[in-house]
């Protein structure tokens, strides 16, 4: 927690600001809806680290996906992710987004979330406890410091692959691609 070191602020205000003002769009799918409120409210109080829940993706920079991701919810997750302003970080909670977790063989859940949207941090646990969440947040700080939390850059560079995966999982998407995709032929030839 180097929030009060002025030199760091002066050197890289952007990074420091991102570290200590993580406005979270917590997309509560699955069992996250029960686990996240204790993180935010009085007992564990995420606000002291600057993490506040926000109403719309436009205002946030942390995207929390808590719990298993069904095929239908994936469409909403992609849409929300694309509507967030640019330096944005994604944290997946629980084992289900990692590898399908308990629903590893279910026909209706997404097994590996990072095939569809870039994920910066994983917090294991079949719904991690609030302390684990804070450990995750602090790890995210270090990632931001070391410039490794660059999911949004990967998404921009590899957008064609992500887009094709999404279309393979969901069939035809009814919103235009976020970044211009050069057509396939020229992609293969490069």
């Amino acid at each position, binding site marked *: 927690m180097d*929030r009060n070191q002025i030199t760091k602020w002066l050197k890289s*205000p*952007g990074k*420091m*600001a*991102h570290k*200590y*003002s993580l*406005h979270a769009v917590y997309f509560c799918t699955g069992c996250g809806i029960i686990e996240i409120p204790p993180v935010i*409210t*009085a*007992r564990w*109080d995420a*606000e*002291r680290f*600057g993490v506040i829940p*926000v*109403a*719309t993706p*436009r*205002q946030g*920079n942390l995207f929390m996906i808590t719990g298993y991701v069904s095929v239908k919810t994936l469409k909403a997750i992609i849409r929300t992710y694309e*509507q*967030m*302003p*640019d*330096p944005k970080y994604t944290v997946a909670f629980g084992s289900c987004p990692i590898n399908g977790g308990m629903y590893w063989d279910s026909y209706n859940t997404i097994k590996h979330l990072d095939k569809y949207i870039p994920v910066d941090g994983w917090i294991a646990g079949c719904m991690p406890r609030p302390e684990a969440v804070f450990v995750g947040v602090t790890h995210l700080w270090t990632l931001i410091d070391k410039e490794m939390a660059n999911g949004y850059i990967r998404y921009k560079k590899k957008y064609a692959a992500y887009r094709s995966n999404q279309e393979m999982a969901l069939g035809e998407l009814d919103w235009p691609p976020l970044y211009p995709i050069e057509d396939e032929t020229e992609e293969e030839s490069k």
Partner: protein
Amino acid sequence: MTRIIQLVLSPLIALVVGVLLLGLSRKIIARIHRRYGPPIYQPVIDVIRMMSQRSISHGSLFDLGVVFALAGSLVTVMFIPLGGTQACQPFAHGVLCPLSSSGGLLVVMYLMLLGPLGLALGAGDSANPNASIGVSRKLLLALAYEVPFLLVILAVMSHYETISLTEIVARQQQAGWGALSVPLSAVAAFLILPAMLGVRPFDLVSAPQEIASGPMAEYGGRSLALIKLYGATHLFLVIALFVDLFLGGGVNLATFLLKMLIVFMAVEMINAVLPRVKIEDAIKFCWKWPAGLALLQMAITVLSKSG
């Protein structure tokens, strides 16, 4: 020369104090919830973070509306005497009222409508139904609290028979606080203070749960930063006006800020605990109790003046 300094200084003070008050409000709410809450300067961090983000824009009016709102509220601050009695003496006594000599309270009232109007125009252009519902609620709420607010201001003006704010402050220095001479208006003003600030009991304009933070639904990045700053200055503005009208405006800047802090703490206490009201009930409330009190006070002052 000193006027130029004051011209630059008063908006700056407004910004800084406003932001700190916002941070303080989150701290107070946290303390009431028996949790630590973010540091006082957390809004500053939020603003820096938002400035470093690259968001979207729905058209030129979408961006300009917010700039228009912030500029309006900053200019309004210049018209309000921030402490000090003599009409615009130099900075020596911490007196700050650069432009209040040109136009007085009428200009302040009109400039105060620039902020909500600018934001409404910007949000309107964002083509999001949440924003439109938010704006419609904002304008209706404004109509609701304007009736008692105008009654209050007219009562004060006819009590002191002047439209210049500095004179009102000066008269209060000798003849005692406004709250004592026009008590019912002070109570009415305090009742509608949360509505003017858009805080908890009347926070239906930017209700995060119902309409995804209303007009700010589509704003992100730097526009959202400007909106936060506008919120801060608007907060400072309203409380400064309240202090000037009813609490004698403070001998110098320090006492003025102290009085503002007290009023702000009172409002935050209410804000921390009350749930949100529906728009119809907000209008009914504002037009019933505060308006009634203010009307009564106005009748009393008019009778006492003409009698």
